[in-house]
């Protein structure tokens, strides 16, 4: 029975990833300790030597990809319910498309933020931490933070709107009066995505990359 449990795909995947991650950390830590090279573990060195471009582009990538994951998840949940409910109650089709639109809005927030953040990435000519300058580092980290902010907010907003929309579709199929009230719940759910966008814009408002 243990073998059957192990044969489960999830179990293999998660044990594999966890094992890889923790063994890497263990071996790296052991090597630092045994060879008395602990002085080389330098977080400041990592943060100043890695290129601000990496952080900026990770932010841009995360902004769009996490938002899209949220939107996709939401649409997948709501869409299945609408299609399923629409078999017996075809009248719900048109009205419930608004839930899909709320989910899609999340993806639109994501792509708009990705474009806004990517427009801030400029070339700079420094190669050492001194010549790169504090402003470029701030730009890189801000763009990363903004991307994370908008990405994760939209991810959870999308899921939330999706689940609420799914419930709305099924409730609407049973009783047409319920839909309007449930829409208010969806609006609240959608607002949280917007909060993420606002904060991300605030984070990148002072970004000025370049020489």
């Amino acid at each position, binding site marked *: 029975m243990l073998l059957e449990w192990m044969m489960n*795909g*999830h179990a293999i*995947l*998660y044990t594999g*990833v966890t094992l890889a991650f923790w063994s890497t950390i263990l071996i790296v830590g052991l090597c630092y300790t045994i060879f008395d*090279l602990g*002085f*080389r573990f330098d977080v400041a060195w*990592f943060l100043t*030597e*890695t*290129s601000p471009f*990496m952080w900026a582009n*990770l932010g841009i990538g995360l902004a769009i*990809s996490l938002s899209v994951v949220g939107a996709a998840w939401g649409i997948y949940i709501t869409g299945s319910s609408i299609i399923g409910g629409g078999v017996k109650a075809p009248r719900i089709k048109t009205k419930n498309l608004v839930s899909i639109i709320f989910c899609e809005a999340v993806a639109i927030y994501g792509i708009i933020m990705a474009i806004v953040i990517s427009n801030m990435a400029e070339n700079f000519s420094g*190669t050492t931490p*001194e010549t790169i300058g504090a402003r470029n580092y701030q730009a890189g980290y801000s763009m990363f933070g903004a991307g994370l902010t908008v990405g994760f907010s939209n991810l959870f907003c999308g899921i939330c709107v999706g689940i609420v929309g799914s419930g709305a579709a099924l409730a609407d199929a049973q009783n047409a009066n319920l839909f309007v009230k449930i829409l208010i719940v969806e609006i609240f759910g959608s607002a949280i995505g917007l909060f993420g966008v606002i904060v991300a814009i605030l984070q990148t408002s002072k970004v000025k990359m370049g020489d």
Partner: protein
Amino acid sequence: MATRGTLRLRSISACLAVFLGALNVLNTASCDEQVPLILWTSEGISLPRQSPPAAGHIVGQQQLTSYLEKVLNEGPKNVVLFLQDKMSIEDFTMYGGAFGNKQDTAFPNLEGALMSSSSPLVLPAVSWPASNAVIGQLQDQLDTSPLYMDPETLSQLRLNGSSPALLVFRLPYGIGADLMSAKEILSGNDEVIGQVLSTMKTQSVPYTAIYTALQPSREAASLSMEAGLGGGRSLLQARGGYRERERERERQRRIKEKAGTYAPVEYKVEELTSSSCCVRHGLSTDRTICNNASFILSSLSLSFSPGGEETCILLWAKSLSVYTLRSGRWDFHDLTPSTFGEGVIPKLHGSSCDKTKAKLVLNYENVLGYLNFKLIFAMSQRHYKVSARRWFTLDTVELEYNGTKAKFNGSRNVYAPAEYSYRCESVTNFRWPLLVPRSFNDPANQWRVSFEDFQIQGFNLTGNEFSYASDCAGFFSPGIWMGLMTSLLMVLVLTYGLHMIMQLRTMDRFDDPKGPAISVPQTE
């Protein structure tokens, strides 16, 4: 005529032998290139089988002597030596038709001779000082002086089968830069070999023939050490174009040729004035007790050197060079020969060291037109709170000349824990700079310094050897960290995606295995 000729030849060969011997002594540097040596006898003569060297084994002088002794004891005493200027085993693999194209080979006569000989001896790797001295060795073993000939003069010579003779044919190699000409030169040499061998055959004198060279024609491929950021890997930015890389390779080759083993520059201080000696010998650090104890110990002549010197600063580099900007050009001066090497004693007046500061002053004379030139390394050590350990930094590198001081700041990049030494492949102020001029109008802006394979230690020295070397290149470079971070993110995304996909299930709510199968009619 013969006696005068042989006398002159003897004197020439003696001078040549001495010159070659001197060259051998001086060529201690790169003995890692090898020259092949091919030996065969004329038809019909068979030598006792000698075990060929193991693959990859480099035959040294002693072993070559023993091979030649065995051959010359048993075989014919007429030795024909084809001595090419340069040869490497690669010449044979490239031009000898070794890849199935036998018709293109540049050595038809050589191959014919080897095949017709009954006991050829092929030594693919003879260390080139040994092959350089092969004339001398043959001269000793045959007890005759070499005759330098070419094919025309050979036909006029009457050889005797019983008396030993050493005939040397010098074959050119050429510059070696142009590939086409190398093959032509080798073909030409092979023709000369063919002519000589046929002449020997018509004279029907048994002979032993040797084909080797004075020097290898190709250097062994070396790992190109690209000095990256602070001497580390240069994954991120490949600087410059092709010409930059060529210059870099030239520089590395020049440095490699210079590399020898020599002791580091040591700056010593009087031992008795520091209490460290007493601590080392397990005595108290109180000055009077220490002095009395040391006096007693010294009178008992235990292992303690009174008035001994303790090394305080150590410096080693493969090359120290400075460049100064004069009328638009960079004038170069190499300080290495006046600092390091056998029997070189650098002048260290003005150096000082104590517990927190160390200063090494190298005094030179006549550098780039300046009468007194000083290269000063100033280091300091202190305790740093955040990392809770002591670190030392190379605060400044100064060039002092004619009263002017050119200062480079190195404390930003040149540092190591105080117990260790600092080592870096390349410490410069222009190529992946670790040293920066103090200010933008400092005279240091007119100078370039370049220290290759640089190691320095100014504190916590035990004995006269460096402590563990903290290298300026870490294990992971920034590029590697960035790659690892991004890859980790991708792996997380992949995991998440896989999780999602793996939890998709086909709907089986309405499955009815016992019911009728679904029919999809082809027609309406």
